[in-house]
């Protein structure tokens, strides 16, 4: 049976853990609000850009130069997979679900005989793939700190990707990230970034699309605009994903820390109960000793 002192120490240590986790929860909650605001602020730009692209996409015909970002290289042999994780842990299944999903995707693509490279964003996925698939990592980005540096850091990733693409290093790029659904739930999402996948957004609008195209004047001309627009779109998509992932991370951490705090509270309750029982047992034992001692005289 543990002594009273042992239980007391244990209660104290669980108590201080609880303090830490609840502090982390508060921090995550306030950071969440901030990064959620950022993610929302970025939305008008990216939705406008998508609209513009959708109405222009149909005019792309030849597969040369920058237009290749839209039309593809004509191959699908070489893939690059970009898992977007957090730089820090203690946020529940946030990072591990990204890593698991990426790992599964890489394996299944390899099963189909494709060449797959990995370009992890975030410390946690970099460390994971450094352990399991070191040779396939082309480049990694850590400490991007998107909520402070903003668009600049998204540009880094996007420029590197485009550089590799135009060198012919890969044909398709797939992003894997946590989509921010609400403060307590994130959804692991795959998104094909290059070549651009406009099918889902433009299909429904196809009817009025042609009408829009007929009316707009393009200056200087459609192709020039498209050439400017496509690289920007890649950057902005990455920016959006990074922001979503950042908000998701804080949400996940908040939920995880909330759980931890609650568990610590329960543990303290049960330990306190045990402490009181043990104390009572000691008192009873002492009483019995005194009484039996008195009787024997």
């Amino acid at each position, binding site marked *: 049976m543990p002594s009273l002192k042992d239980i007391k120490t244990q209660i104290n240590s669980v108590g201080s853990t609880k303090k830490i986790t609840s502090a982390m929860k508060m921090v995550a909650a306030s950071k969440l609000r901030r990064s959620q605001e950022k993610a929302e602020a970025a939305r008008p730009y990216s939705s406008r850009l998508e609209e513009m692209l959708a109405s222009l996409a149909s005019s792309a015909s030849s597969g040369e130069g920058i237009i290749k970002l839209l039309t593809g290289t004509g191959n699908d042999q070489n893939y690059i997979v970009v898992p977007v994780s957090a730089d820090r842990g203690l946020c529940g299944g946030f990072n591990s679900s990204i890593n698991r999903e990426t790992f599964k995707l890489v394996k299944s693509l390899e099963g189909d005989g494709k060449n797959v490279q990995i370009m992890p964003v975030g410390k946690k996925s970099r460390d994971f793939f450094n352990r399991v698939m070191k040779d396939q990592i082309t480049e990694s980005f850590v400490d991007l700190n998107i909520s402070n540096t903003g668009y600049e850091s998204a540009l880094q990733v996007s420029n590197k990707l485009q550089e590799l693409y135009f060198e012919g290093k890969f044909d398709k790029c797939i992003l894997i990230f946590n989509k921010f659904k609400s403060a307590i739930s994130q959804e692991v999402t795959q998104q094909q970034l290059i070549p651009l996948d406009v099918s889902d957004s433009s299909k429904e609008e196809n009817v009025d699309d042609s009408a829009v195209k007929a*009316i707009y004047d393009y200056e200087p001309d459609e192709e020039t605009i498209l050439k400017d627009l496509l690289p920007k779109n890649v950057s902005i998509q990455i920016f959006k994903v990074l922001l979503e992932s950042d908000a998701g991370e804080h949400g996940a951490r908040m939920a995880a820390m909330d759980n931890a705090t609650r568990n610590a509270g329960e543990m303290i309750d049960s330990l306190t109960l045990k402490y009181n029982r043990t104390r009572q047992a000691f008192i009873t034992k002492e009483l019995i000793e005194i009484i039996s001692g008195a009787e024997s005289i």
Partner: protein
Amino acid sequence: MAKISFDLVSPENLIFNDEVGMIIVPGKDGDFGVLPGHSKVMSSLRPGRVMVYGEDKNLLKAFFVSGGFAEVNPEKCIVLAESVDEINTLEKSSIEKEVEELKDQETDAAKEQLSIAKAKIEALDSSFYEKI
């Protein structure tokens, strides 16, 4: 007089969103003014000034954009810009310093930066469109 709704959007946030009288936008092939009822145009932009005017053609705000896109229809004008500064927050001395630093660099990125910085100085010196 009629008004046109104007949005100036950067990747990080919505910078300007209001009903205005007129906007002058630095299109790739030359500046163009947008009045209410303008025909539909999509244009890419060069680095330059976006000028926003009230109903009686008084200058409300002047921004510097480093490039981007504009979409215009009769009711609305949207400018998507990569980076936006309000003209009166720019400091000439610091931009000139930037130009000096970038002058001798050969990389494409530096050249692009240089042309943006030069356009900034031009925008600061120019007094076109201030009174209409």
